[in-house]
């Protein structure tokens, strides 16, 4: 045990373990990882407000490292990220004001949590269904011995949005997308409102909106999302630091661990198809939704229920462990596939032979 603050003693090895695990997920899926990190810190013994502030502060450093790595892999569209973050910042402020207004009206946290759960379930289920449909399509191509293309668009919706001719049209050379500025601003603003209302860094919403609405390849969405998260997390860090909610020493320990995890997670993206990122992201979002449902149940019951607490710990650590294990398994399968060794047939459409 290590004293972080007077009265708060934390097991330093658990901090390292969590930092490493969330780092792998962050580097692989382009999320900040706050939806696992914050509950994990609370379970470790951090008071809730310290957990949120420390987690957001850690996300800044973690996202910088992830964005650096993904930039080297050619996965960051800085121009698109900057345009979108301007709109998203405006949306975030509106989202925070909506929350404050709702509280003034007497609407309790339960309402906000219920909206978040609905959002998580819709996005998570849609992502899983889309990934499953695409996987089936790829499996059929493999059966017909057709060569799989390097990347495929997730949906036709992004092409319809790109087809709307509303000047000024912006061309993003890096991601090969031409789209109206107004559409990017509208999507960014809407994403920002959701982030502000749900009170999260918004990585999973960003990645999926970049893939499904703007039409970026999944890996480009991962890198660009990490780049945008730097700004949204910095905004959160400033607000929480001013309130004294940041334990910088804990964030520092976690970043030393997560920097290795992020590298690994980002490098695994060179071995898998974009579909795998969407699969794992969908599963993570649903795990997060289950955690939120338990939290809501606890609030509604108005008292501490043991099985709910145990369930919450299980969901947080089990969910994190499960996603990290899936990433590791994919990596091992991809290595076997590349070296010509036999792999499970359902994995073939998830991994790639080319670097």
């Amino acid at each position: 045990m290590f004293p972080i603050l007077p009265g708060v003693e934390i097991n330093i090895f658990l901090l390292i373990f969590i930092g490493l695990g969330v780092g792998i997920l962050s580097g692989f899926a382009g999320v900040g990882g706050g939806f696992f990190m914050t509950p994990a810190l609370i379970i470790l013994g951090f008071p809730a407000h310290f957990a949120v502030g420390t987690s957001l502060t850690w996300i800044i450093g973690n996202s910088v490292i992830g964005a650096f790595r993904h930039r080297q892999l050619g996965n960051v569209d800085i121009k698109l990220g900057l345009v979108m973050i301007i709109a998203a910042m405006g949306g975030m402020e509106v989202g925070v004001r909506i929350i404050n207004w709702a509280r003034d009206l007497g609407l309790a946290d339960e309402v906000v949590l219920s909206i978040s759960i609905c959002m998580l379930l819709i996005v998570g289920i849609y992502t899983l269904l889309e990934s499953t449909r695409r996987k089936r399509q790829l499996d059929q191509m493999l059966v017909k011995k057709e060569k799989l293309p390097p990347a495929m668009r997730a949906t036709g919706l992004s092409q319809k949005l790109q087809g709307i001719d509303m000047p000024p049209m912006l061309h993003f050379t890096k991601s090969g997308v031409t789209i109206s500025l107004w559409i990017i601003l509208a999507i960014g603003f809407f994403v920002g409102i959701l982030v502000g209302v749900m009170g999260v860094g918004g990585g999973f919403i960003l990645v999926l909106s970049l893939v499904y609405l703007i039409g970026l390849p999944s890996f480009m969405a991962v890198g660009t999302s990490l780049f945008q998260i730097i700004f949204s997390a910095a905004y959160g860090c400033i607000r929480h630091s001013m309130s004294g909610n940041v334990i910088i020493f804990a964030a520092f320990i976690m970043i030393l661990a997560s920097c290795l995890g992020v590298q690994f997670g980002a490098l695994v993206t060179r071995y898998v198809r974009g579909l795998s990122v969407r699969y794992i992201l969908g599963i993570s979002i649903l795990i997060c939704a289950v955690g939120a449902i338990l939290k809501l149940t606890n609030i509604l019951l108005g008292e501490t229920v043991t099985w709910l607490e145990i369930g919450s710990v299980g969901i947080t650590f089990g969910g994190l462990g499960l996603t990290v294990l899936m990433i590791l398994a994919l990596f091992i399968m991809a290595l076997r596939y590349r070296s010509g060794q036999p792999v499970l047939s359902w994995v073939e459409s998830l991994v790639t032979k080319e670097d």
Partner: protein
Amino acid sequence: MSRRKRVAIQVAALSIICGLIIWHVVQWHSTGMYLEMFRWLQTSRGYLTVLYNLGLMLVLGVLLGFLMGKLTKLIGYEVHDTKLFDHKTEASETE
């Protein structure tokens, strides 16, 4: 000077800078400086704490990001291409 040697020197330099930052953070934690900075939040010096938190994470992120990038270069990992859409076959793939 060979490319590999140059990268090795950069890795060494970045490691030293990161090491100094680690030493500084551990030192400030053990001397109780961070607790003192918590108290600053109640005074006009509070902005220094905010800037320090933000700055430490950004600087550490950039340095570790650079360091890891150089380390993988030193190991010999190179990225050859970026995975983008195959525009020639795209029309038949979209749903």
